[in-house]
């Protein structure tokens, strides 16, 4: 199948007078049409920065792409002019934002907010009436009665607002949808409804999705491929089965799984990762995870690990740089 998005060795920094934040450090991945890729990581891992980079929405004053390319449909997003970007954004790539409470404009009706994308990307020269009709169809699609299109965001509950945000993202039939923690602000029963809806719509329209989340449960239910991010790097990348079963993992992935209380197994203690995320202005030399890693060796403190790969399953760790020496 066609590759829709390809990111090669992308690095992004935020530079201010006082300090430089190394937010994304050399990540690469690709996404085919209709696939869902999960980006998992904790706060500050660089997930959202990656997403904003793909959309060309990085803050101009501070953010710099220092290396790499983001190829969307063969074109480099980083080198596009603002006008070209405007044509891509919202029409071909769109985003579902994390917090439905603040992502909507409180003084516009939901109908006009959904219609806005159609007005701006009106290549087919739809008439006012046709646009209204598309808005109504999209509302029904996300499970909101079309009679409610003239209501304001405050009249909707959190779950319903997230549906409106999804409707805005989907109204132009984008090729790529970036969902940035789409269900974090919602209750579990509503989360289940929204996730099912995103998956159904994706299958219907063949959209590719990047699902940004910190919840491994959400990943297991929606994603085909998974990238685990830590301190701006993808430390492990593979198919869902590689990450969730498989017998070789990055120590950070193991730590993440050890931190979740299990619903089925009895255990009195969790096995968390000790310590904290490194300060992104002063990243450690060598492996970024070394200071918290239980398997840390001498070499980890001084040299960046290379990528170990087997059938597309990639791990960035010194434990696996030479497969013959792997001890478990």
């Amino acid at each position, binding site marked *: 199948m066609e590759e829709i998005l390809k990111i090669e060795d992308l690095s992004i920094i935020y530079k201010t007078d006082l300090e430089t934040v190394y937010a994304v450090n050399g990540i690469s991945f690709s996404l085919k049409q209709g696939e869902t890729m999960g980006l998992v990581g904790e706060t500050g891992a660089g997930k959202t920065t990656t997403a904003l980079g793909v959309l060309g929405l990085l803050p101009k004053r501070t953010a710099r792409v220092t290396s790499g390319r983001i190829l969307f449909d063969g074109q480099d997003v980083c080198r596009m002019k603002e006008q070209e970007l405007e044509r891509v954004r919202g029409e071909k790539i769109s985003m579902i934002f994390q917090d439905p409470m603040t992502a909507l404009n409180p003084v516009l009706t939901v109908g006009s907010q959904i219609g806005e994308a159609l007005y701006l990307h009106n290549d087919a020269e739809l008439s006012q009436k046709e646009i209204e009709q598309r808005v109504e169809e999209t509302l029904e699609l996300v499970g909101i009665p079309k009679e409610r299109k003239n209501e304001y965001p405050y009249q909707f509950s959190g779950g319903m607002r997230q549906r409106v945000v999804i409707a805005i993202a989907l109204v132009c039939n984008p090729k790529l949808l970036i969902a940035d923690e789409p269900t974090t602000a919602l209750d*579990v029963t509503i989360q289940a409804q929204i996730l099912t809806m995103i998956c159904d719509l994706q299958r219907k329209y063949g959209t590719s999705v990047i699902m940004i989340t910190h919840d491994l449960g959400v990943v297991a239910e*929606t994603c085909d491929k998974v990238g685990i991010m830590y301190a701006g790097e993808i430390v492990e990348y593979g198919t869902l089965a590689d990450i*969730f079963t498989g017998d070789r993992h990055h120590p950070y992935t193991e730590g993440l799984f050890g*931190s979740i209380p299990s619903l089925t197994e009895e255990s009195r*203690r969790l096995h968390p990762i000790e310590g904290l995320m490194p300060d992104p202005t002063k990243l450690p030399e060598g492996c970024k995870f070394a200071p918290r890693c239980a398997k840390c060796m001498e070499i980890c403190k001084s040299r960046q690990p290379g990528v170990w790969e087997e059938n597309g399953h990639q791990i960035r760790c010194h434990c696996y740089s030479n497969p013959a020496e792997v001890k478990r």
Partner: protein
Amino acid sequence: MTEILLDVKNLKKYFKTPAGMLHAVDDVSFSIPKGKTMGVVGESGCGKSTLGRTALQLYEPTAGEILFHGKNIASLSKKEFHQIRPKMQMIFQDPYASLNGRMTVRQLIAEPLIVNKVCKSKRETEEKVDRIMDTVGLASRLAMAYPHELDGGRRQRIGIARALILNPEFVVCDEPVSALDVSIQAQILNLLMDLQEQMGLTYLFITHDLSVVRHISDEIMVMYLGKCVEYAEAKEIFRNPVHPYTKALLASIPIPSVESLHKRRELIKGEVTSPVNPKPGCRFAARCPFASDACRQEDIPLKEVAPGHFAACRMV
């Protein structure tokens, strides 16, 4: 049988709103034995936090009794209540909002000691602060730092230190880990469980995260719109949920394993209805796939379905 530390009977808390009476907590009873953890789960707006705060008398209950060591705390005089207050403490949800940004870590942790006039000298206060900082895993070099310099996990440790410095017996933990990342969340959960063992604490643990509540609780209460819909031992409720809401809640949790990919789940439709002037009958009836007219007629009391396992549903 161990001693019952906290016994809550028919607790009600209504708030007056322009639209009518909001039934935040409606006729909830439970008891917690000493040294055990009671978990309260439910979706936002179901009255979990109000329950926790009312149990600590931070809100005046509309009706019902709260017995602490067998004494009704509502009937105590102001002076007697002040003697009991240090024994009942709370850990708040948001470590970013619950600390005064103008106080240092040391001042923040010492504040409960000063308010309650526990220590006779400054040195005694400092010693106590040092000891509790060590207990909750805060390095002593952080004593002069301000909260904004610290990350969420460390701030939550300050919140825990503030709650524990008065040697309480009973602590209400209101979503203590929901604002934290998973790896930090696990550190804090382990800390809370270690402290319970060391100090013999009794917890009322409020959360919306079912895997967390299963991990830490001895007994679990599931709430829906101010009502307790199911109440049982932690293992029992996960092994054998009875109430349709509990079942739906458990089915909604995304499970981190490969088998769950694209798995069709049974979803409950709709959303939580308004808690303002609720109609009689089962509160869950509007979303329940098994609801009949009889469910909407009258309130359904808790029924014992197995020893120690209670559920409020007509079907059981």
